[in-house]
């Protein structure tokens, strides 16, 4: 199939859906499904760029802080637990249990303890994003090639060099998987925590609009969150591909998988 054919075929379904939506809502009278014109005018009223400074930027800052904390804690602790067997055995049941508790459950208690400010949001994002990172790091470290470790010992490589040059690169693809899940979980928890308790933010604005039957704001919010999720993922992939380009190249050479 030619490139043009692929592009046309790929855009077929989105275009059909949009056309059907536009046609079905052209009267603009349905309270739930507003016309596209009203969605786009609401989108530009709110998000270009009236409320970006007050409701998008602070949220993104919370997400960034929470995510960085998750990486800064999850990866080193994962390294430690992946390498020290008794410590892993000591904490494994706790980790298994904690990861089975949906992270969103911690939002109500955290709000009770810390209030609805930025601290509780950063903490909940760090908690939710930290677990996938922790688990995939442990997993990646424990799958380190034994032969490479033997070689490292044979050539008397220092502990620090062993970790930096053998363990971490070996675990990196696995860690990146957790980092991607963690980012999605963090984004979800950000919006969810704004829906539960907040006085600003996209989630807060959408729940407020829901309470007042303001459907154009809700649909504009869906558009905004979709674009943000998409862009965040693109950014993540760009960073990931820089970090583990050698792994991706190896995979491309060895064929599918």
């Amino acid at each position: 199939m030619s490139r043009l054919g692929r592009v046309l075929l790929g855009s077929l379904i989105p275009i059909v859906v949009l056309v059907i939506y536009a046609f079905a809502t052209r009267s603009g009278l349905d309270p739930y499904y507003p016309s596209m014109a009203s969605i786009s005018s609401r989108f530009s009223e709110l998000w270009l760029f009236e409320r970006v400074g007050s409701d998008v930027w602070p949220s993104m800052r919370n997400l960034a802080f929470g995510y960085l904390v998750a990486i800064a804690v999850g990866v080193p602790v994962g390294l430690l637990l992946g390498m020290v067997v008794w410590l892993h055995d000591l904490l494994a049941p706790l980790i298994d249990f904690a990861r089975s508790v949906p992270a969103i459950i911690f939002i109500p208690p955290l709000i009770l303890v810390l209030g609805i400010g930025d601290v509780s949001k950063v903490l909940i994002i760090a908690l939710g994003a930290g677990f996938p990172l922790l688990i995939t790091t442990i997993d990646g470290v424990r799958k380190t090639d034994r032969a490479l470790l033997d070689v490292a010992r044979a050539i008397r490589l220092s502990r620090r060099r062993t970790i930096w040059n053998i363990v971490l690169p070996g675990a990196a693809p696995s860690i990146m998987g957790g980092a991607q899940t963690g980012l999605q979980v963090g984004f979800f928890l950000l919006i969810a925590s704004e829906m539960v308790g907040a006085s600003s933010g996209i989630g807060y604005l959408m729940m407020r609009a829901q309470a007042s039957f303001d459907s154009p704001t809700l649909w504009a919010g869906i558009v905004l969150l979709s674009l943000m999720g998409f862009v965040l993922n693109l950014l993540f992939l760009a960073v990931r591909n820089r970090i583990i380009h050698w792994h991706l190249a190896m995979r491309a050479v060895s064929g599918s998988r």
Partner: protein
Amino acid sequence: MSRAMRKSILGVAGVVLSLVLWQYLTVGGPLAQTPGLPTASGTFERAVKQAGDPELWSALATTLVVTLAALLIASLLGIGVGLLMGYSKIFSTALDPLVQFLRPVPPVALLPVALLVMGPTSNLAILMAVVTAMWPALVQTLVGVRGVDNVTLDAARAMVLPPLLIQTRIVLLSALPHIATGIRIAASYALLMAIATGILTGAPGLGRSILFAQQAGDSALVFALAVYAGILGLAISQAFSRIEGRLTRDYGPTAEAAAS
């Protein structure tokens, strides 16, 4: 001492130590008297007391039913679309851009509109759980179908096996462990969203109980319910890991090597 025994002794010690630490921090330690932070003993007293409350069991049952219903729908959707995209070039070209765009979109973006249309009902929880859980099912199915060993496939073609047989006996079977992984991840996503919808909207189930406990400022109850949610989550993930482990053992990439 055997490795397994050491492991379980250490595991129990870890749980006990963390409970002692929690109790110490909240009773005499630096976190004592923090509003909203119950003690370990208070939480477990509450959890035990709650076990006698039929409301807890009906909330747990509702959450379980919502999760399993959503998992069923999400698996059918995800595996169905995944197989279509895996088998057919046309479908995969037509759907790939859409999947690439929609997958990173947080499903919770849909929640306010869905709440407006459906109200805080079990169906809302099922819908939200379906749109969250169908992605892992879809993606893993796709990975499984596309990752079929080319050598095996060539051998089958060389033996002139009928195409239908190739698709079912070789492609589908070797994709099975991946599909099982997809369903396992989907199950935990479905549970997450079933509870999240309750907390965010008051839809029935464990999430709503947690929401009400938070609104009443009853933090011991919030933590006690979180313990039950963890037990439910652990049970679901253990059950599906077991199925996944079995399928991987029987049909996974190493199964043939182990059998020969």
